[in-house]
């Protein structure tokens, strides 16, 4: 038996579960870890749902909770971080040589993102989500200017990491 509030909450989560899934993909080390993180985020969202007054956009509210949960859980880092290429990114559709090359580069990029710090991952995720710097600031609490500087550094870092990935180092 579900209450009205619970029903509203479940609908909301189902509608926006892409946000939770993406955070879990970036911060979880393996499938079991991602499932645990997903569950933890849902629990934290549920705990905070009663006090949500709509002052912020629902997506901002969800990003804050999901990222806060993922970052502050701070599970011990295992030596092997297996950031899998998400299922939503087509793996076998590439037919031509150029497409295969592009796919390979994207895989390298994704693996490189897995080697970023927790804060850098959050910035990259919001960038990939096409969030403006103002929205990023609202979620992360880092000033607009600092975010731009950090984003440029992250892009540089990713470039060198993808090169390292390509050469298998």
């Amino acid at each position, binding site marked *: 038996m*579900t209450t009205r509030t*619970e029903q509203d909450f*479940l609908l909301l*989560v*189902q509608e926006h*579960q*892409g946000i939770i*899934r*993406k955070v879990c993909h970036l911060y979880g080390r393996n499938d079991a870890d991602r499932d*645990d993180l*997903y*569950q*933890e985020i*849902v*629990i*934290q969202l*549920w*705990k*905070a749902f009663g*006090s*949500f007054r709509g002052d912020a956009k629902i997506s901002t509210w969800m990003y*804050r*909770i999901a*990222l*806060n*949960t993922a*970052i*502050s*859980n*701070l599970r*011990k880092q295992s030596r092997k971080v297996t950031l899998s290429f*998400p*299922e*939503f*990114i087509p793996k076998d559709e590439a037919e031509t040589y150029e497409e295969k090359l*592009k796919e390979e*580069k*994207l895989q390298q*990029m*994704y693996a490189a993102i897995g080697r970023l710090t*927790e*804060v850098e991952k*959050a910035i*990259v995720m919001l*960038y*990939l*989500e*096409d969030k403006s710097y103002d929205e990023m600031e*609202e*979620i*992360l*609490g*880092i*000033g607009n*200017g*600092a975010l731009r*500087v*950090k984003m440029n550094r992250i*892009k540089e870092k*990713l470039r060198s990491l993808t090169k390292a990935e390509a050469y298998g180092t």
Partner: protein
Amino acid sequence: MELDQLKEMWGKVDSSTQTSEQELQAMLQKKSKSPIAKMKRNLTIEMWVVVVLYLWIIIDYIISFKGLILMIPLLFFLIGVGFIVYYIRKRKLLHQMECVTCEVKSNLQQQLQILEKYIRFYLLAGTALVPITIILMCTVLFFYAPEVQQVRAKQSVPYGYFLLAIVIISVILTVPVYFLNKWYVRKLYGQHAEKLKQIVNEMNEEE
């Protein structure tokens, strides 16, 4: 630019696997596994163990000794009350530690600040407990223990000796307990606090 290519595909994630309503409902019934939730649960268990243990000691003493030297159960009661105050303070700090709906940076800063306060309080209270217990125990022994009373009746023991003995015993026991507590607190929360500090510092760079 590869990151921008990834951005195009990133938007397609919504159509991927969906968690059903039943699965989500089942998740809501489960307990949080966050470090703070675990700390709160451990604290509650610890508090109940102390309450039950102290009550059992007090009741057992009163029954076994038929109400003799009531100072002893009173002493245990006072130490027990001290423990309760200690747990209430720790629980309050744990409640303040988390703000998942806040901006990520302010939440982590708050977590770090409160965790440092929590560690300090843990260390201070855990260490202070030793001299307090010794002072109370020695006072009861000195004024109420029949054996000590017999000795005191035969020869007068100056209060100065009594105080000196308390100070020496307190120092001998408190110093190692302090270092033991420090090591234990660091073992429990040191790594977590360090990691939090590192993240907060990273977030504050270029600000």
